[in-house]
């Protein structure tokens, strides 16, 4: 446990808070915790809003319509009769002037119109570095392309049996140009316009344009109404659903400003729910809540909570909290996929099955760190916001602490850093992300933070790499020879040799790698080589391991990359850019 008296008292006395009305520990004031009675909604219940219901009903209708279009002969004939009635009626309305207008409107479905729209959107997203939106866009286009191509061939519906007076290509169902324009408008609306008035205006305009294209294609006799309407609904639905599922507005808001990282919006209903949940479940009254250090966190939404103090005259007390959601769970899974491709099967890269498991694991690791005597932030527990979907992990806030890169480094700090690694080794733990941002210094004391990636009983090379990464960040700020000398007080020369033998580009966190690059750029010798030269000779240790899973994932990643290259080349050549 922490040496902090306040923390010690918290640990021993918090268990009794449920039975009391109020408890004061140091500056913190706890009021009675409240168990949510059976049947009461959670702080932030998961509820489908109007738009959610709309898209579910639209999806069910689409699937139902499609099945009735092609599953039973009677319904197929019924639809075809309806289609032909409309088409014949339109055919009777044909005039030279109207045909000229419809010919012009028909070009809305051409690649010359659709591809520039897609490329402009892609370029905007690249410019603003909104990668998640970009992948959402590519995913939606890919799904629509795949489904439309698949349906075209399997349904093999011919063109309408009327006089066709417009150009066409391929089978009729679903209408590929309409689906292409619909998904393009859909992703543009979701990726470029913030939720609200402007998006609504854009979507309305897009629907009007889509309607004109459908009208033109029906007038020219190239599509059945069911081909065009199904394609339009399908394209829009895919775009909206892909963005709602993988790029939710609440996590990845559309902000046309560079370098904005995506995090959960903690205002509105979620903010109120968090305050209520912390009050009910931890017995702490939250006065204010602000995002904190967003730029350094991709795996959660970090918050600084200002909580009620025992004495109103006392300065505010802060707690640190990390909000985890389904989105963060998915990020964690993708991160692990990336690590499996990079390293192979050496690491524990088994994915978490739920947000609850993810947050429970981090809480457990923090407790293990505390138990091992590691100077790290203390956990106050998990708060449930939405069951299985959103949880908050509340911890100690290291007020006034400086990041290692900004703090004054003396021999004491160097020693503390190395002792941390020794304690990790002795406890059978590995932090796996030792970098300047994760070592905080406060009043001459170093503390380890961000233990989410830590693991119990890690591979030996991973423990060795923790040591190398710690020596690296120490050596960047302190005399490397001294760092090596102090390291030998806690580790054998062979330990240090092994650490640097296992070190390569991919084992060093990006932040440390950049700092090292800058260090070398100032004329200093390569630190890794310096430490290697001090330690006894040791053959390089390969951290690469191959497994079927790694091969499969790597092949999958290559295929996706090739598809993207093919998509780019196809679009450039198809639109006449090349």
């Amino acid at each position: 446990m922490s040496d902090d008296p306040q923390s010690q008292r918290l640990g021993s006395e918090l268990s009794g808070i449920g039975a009391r009305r109020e408890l004061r520990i140091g500056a913190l004031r706890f009021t009675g915790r409240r168990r949510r009675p059976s049947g009461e909604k959670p702080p932030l219940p998961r509820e489908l809003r109007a738009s959610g219901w709309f898209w579910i009903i639209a999806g069910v209708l689409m699937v139902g319509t499609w099945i009735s279009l092609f599953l039973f002969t009677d319904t197929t004939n019924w639809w075809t009769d309806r289609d032909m009635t409309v088409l014949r009626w339109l055919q009777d309305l044909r005039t030279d002037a109207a045909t000229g207008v419809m010919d012009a409107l028909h070009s809305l479905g051409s690649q010359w119109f659709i591809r520039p729209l897609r490329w402009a959107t892609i370029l905007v997203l690249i410019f603003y570095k909104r990668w998640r939106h970009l992948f959402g866009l590519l995913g939606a286009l890919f799904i629509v392309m795949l489904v439309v191509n698949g349906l075209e061939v399997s349904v093999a519906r011919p063109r309408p049996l009327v006089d066709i007076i417009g150009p066409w290509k391929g089978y009729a169902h679903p209408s590929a140009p309409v689906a292409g324009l619909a998904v393009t408008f859909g992703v543009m609306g979701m990726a470029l316009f913030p939720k609200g008035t402007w998006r609504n205006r854009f979507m309305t305009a897009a629907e009007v344009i889509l309607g004109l294209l459908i009208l033109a294609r029906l007038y020219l006799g190239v599509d059945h109404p069911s081909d065009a309407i199904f394609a339009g609904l399908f394209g829009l639905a895919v775009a909206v659903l892909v963005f709602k599922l993988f790029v939710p507005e609440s996590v990845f808001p559309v902000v046309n400003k560079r370098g904005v990282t995506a995090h959960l919006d903690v205002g509105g209903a979620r903010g109120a729910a968090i305050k209520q949940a912390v009050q009910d479940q931890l017995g702490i009254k939250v006065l204010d809540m602000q995002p904190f250090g967003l730029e350094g966190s991709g795996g959660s939404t970090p918050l600084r909570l200002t909580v009620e103090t025992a004495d109103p005259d006392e300065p505010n007390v802060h707690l640190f909290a990390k909000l985890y959601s389904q989105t963060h769970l998915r990020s964690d899974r993708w991160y692990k996929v990336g690590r499996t491709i990079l390293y192979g099967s050496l690491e524990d890269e088994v994915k978490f099955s739920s947000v609850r498991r993810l947050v429970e694991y981090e809480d457990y690791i923090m407790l293990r760190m505390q138990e091992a005597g590691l100077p790290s932030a203390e956990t106050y527990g998990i708060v449930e916001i939405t069951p299985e979907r959103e949880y908050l992990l509340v911890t100690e806030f290291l007020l006034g602490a400086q990041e290692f890169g900004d703090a004054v480094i003396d021999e004491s700090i160097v020693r503390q850093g190395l002792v941390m690694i020794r304690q990790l080794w002795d406890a059978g733990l590995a932090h796996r992300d030792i970098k300047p941002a994760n070592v905080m210094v406060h009043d001459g004391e170093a503390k380890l933070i961000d233990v989410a990636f830590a693991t119990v009983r890690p591979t030996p090379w991973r423990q060795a790499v923790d040591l190398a990464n710690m020596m690296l960040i120490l050596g960047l700020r302190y005399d490397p020879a001294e760092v090596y000398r102090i390291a030998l007080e806690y580790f054998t020369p062979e330990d240090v040799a092994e650490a640097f033998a296992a070190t390569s580009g991919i084992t060093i966190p990006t932040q440390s790698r950049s700092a090292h690059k800058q260090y070398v750029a100032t004329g200093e010798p390569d630190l890794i080589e310096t430490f290697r030269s001090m330690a006894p000779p040791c053959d390089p240790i390969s951290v690469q391991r191959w497994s079927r899973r790694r091969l499969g994932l790597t092949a999958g990643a290559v295929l996706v990359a090739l598809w993207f290259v093919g998509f780019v080349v196809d679009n450039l050549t198809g639109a006449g850019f090349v």
Partner: protein
Amino acid sequence: MSRRLFALVIVALVASACGNNQLGRGVPACPADPEVITSVTGSMVLQMQAVDSAEYVPCLNDLKAGWSYEDLVSSRGKSQFWLDSDRLGSHFVEVTLAASCDVGGAPELTTDGVTGVTEFRDVNLVSSTVTMVIVPTTGREADYARAIESELEARQINDRQVFVVFDTSDLPLTEKVAAAAERNRPIIIVNEQDALDRTATLRMPDDTSSVRGLKLPQLFDRLESRLPDPSFTGRWYRVFEGGCITYEFDAEGPGVDRLADDVEDALGLFPAGVVRRAMRSAGILG
């Protein structure tokens, strides 16, 4: 209902939809009875729509073992599909329906075909067999010539089976060479010195000079490098009222000798004009 069960239901519905007789129409199969309009697949109708003047559209009968149908790409004015083969290569024939085509200098096929269809063929067949001529200059090197024959017939050169004929006529050598060239046959000449040195002289049909003194391994290497692989390239045209079908061949490998017959069996002609008129009279077609 759990999400998995829901997904299963959707998959089952979609799969059953794909089993509907209205679906699975991607292959332009020749209808068993062209008079029955409902037996005409969507892909056949699509071809009819692509070239709506064409009296006939191409269709598929039974494909040979190892052959597969690949794609139907139709647009207004043109429709194409391809056939693949595990032995003749992918897209070994491209079938294109258009309103008209330029047959160039392709000669007309004179045999009786489908009424109202004129056929032109301009193809180049490199057979999967090759006949070579061995010319012993005197009777004294006959044993050596027989040994070369045995060696040649025991092996395949570029996937081509070798047959050997002997030219022991009294004609002058130049005439023998000319006769072999005319029949597109390589000629191997052996004389007494060759029999002693175990060599031979080779003259390929399109060469103007001979290569002398080739040891037998050199002779086989040279034949391998000069003899083309078996192939079937070129075009057939079937021209009829309102349209033309072009069959463009690019086949390579064993099996090319029977390719023309196999393609004739596999690819049929569907009387689109008749069906179109029947549909119009039934009010189905606008």
